[in-house]
């Protein structure tokens, strides 16, 4: 059987291939996942990704993968029909010079989990950057979601670290959530191995 091709870093010039709007090459992906008319609660997620010295990463790329507002994935492994063909559930955002990023989407619904247990609404996150030899995987959960208490994946995370996975609603701006990613050190984000 063939063996796996190893992962390598995206390097500092990742925008050229993965977010090439500045290089006169048509971008395929965007940080905006949801058209205005799409059913569901429209939200905006803003965050910053920082290294072990607290410095923002100007050369990171964040990818998200999520279900629609009804908790359905635009993928054949999820056999349930989608409410809209326009929602593909995937977004990609390069960070700015300060390490900041944003996504505009709809809040995902609850999705099936292991052993017949429902998972709380969440978004899968993949992180690429110079200095990351392979992708990091984390999840965004929503701090105002009651289902978090029974989520089977959050239950695997030590309680004192769970807050690093919670996007927090902004009291002043409805629909805005804050989700920062800390690669190392104090309040280091929880990363998963699936």
């Amino acid at each position, binding site marked *: 059987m063939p063996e796996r091709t190893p992962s390598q870093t*995206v390097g500092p010039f990742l925008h050229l291939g993965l977010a090439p709007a500045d290089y006169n090459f048509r971008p395929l992906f965007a940080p905006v996942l949801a058209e205005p008319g799409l059913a569901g609660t429209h939200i905006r997620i803003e965050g910053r990704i920082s290294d072990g010295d607290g410095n923002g990463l100007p050369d990171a790329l964040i990818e998200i*993968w999520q279900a629609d507002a009804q908790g359905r994935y635009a993928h054949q492994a999820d056999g349930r029909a989608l409410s809209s063909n326009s929602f593909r559930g995937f977004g990609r955002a390069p960070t700015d010079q300060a390490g900041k990023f944003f996504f505009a989407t709809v809040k995902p619904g609850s999705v099936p989990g292991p052993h017949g247990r429902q998972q709380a609404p969440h978004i899968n996150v993949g992180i690429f950057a110079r200095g990351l030899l392979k992708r990091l995987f984390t999840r965004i959960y929503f701090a105002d979601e009651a289902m978090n208490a029974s989520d089977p994946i959050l239950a695997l995370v030590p309680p004192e670290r769970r807050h690093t996975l919670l996007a927090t609603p902004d009291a002043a701006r409805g629909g805005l959530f804050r989700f920062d990613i800390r690669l190392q050190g104090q309040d280091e984000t929880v990363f998963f191995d699936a």
Partner: protein
Amino acid sequence: MDDTYSRAGNRADPPYLAADYRSTRVRAPSRPLIVIPQTLSEITGPVYGHADVRPEEADLTRQHAGEPLGERIVVRGCVLDEAGRPVPETLVEIWQCNAAGRYIHVVDQHPAPLDPNFTGAGRCVTDADGVYEFTTIKPGAYPWRNHANAWRPAHIHFSLFGPSFLTRLVTQMYFPGDPLFAFDPIFNSVSDAKARARMVCQFDLDTTRPEWALGYTFDIVLRGPDATPQDPDHA
């Protein structure tokens, strides 16, 4: 819950912390990853296919008024999974520097010439047999500031999706016999020599176009199905 995708093949990947690659020191997580089951959120993933990509985006030598300088090459290969099955209809994105070792990217300050006829970005979608093909220019080596007199071996960055969130792969394709291999901490972050060899393309006379371009083949193997024997009562 049984795994859908193999975990055993993950050992081919480099670690997050590879101290000789300096920027990993402040970017690698210091806490162990938390192992979780593969749920519907992981065994699904983004689907982008032929409708999203234009055929001409696979030829990096025809994106400008003139032809780029350098050695024209064809890079062709099959995207497979660990069970040896082709991965059809999957997006492949590439990026690279020009023949002189310079990226068009704003951050690249290497004093080698830019080529007005070369951007260095391309994409295509694998066919029904998992085959992809790009026409491009052989990239040059270039210096970086990781350590004294540090140079990257010539490489092309590859990004692939595969059928799920877990099959996503970003790697680099290197060229055979590069004298810089021994000195490159990114290449050598992969500890197993046989795994490193899987990142190196091969010259191929059959892929070579007479009077036109040298051909290289580069097969890419994505994460595949879990091969752990199943309990027949739970299969």
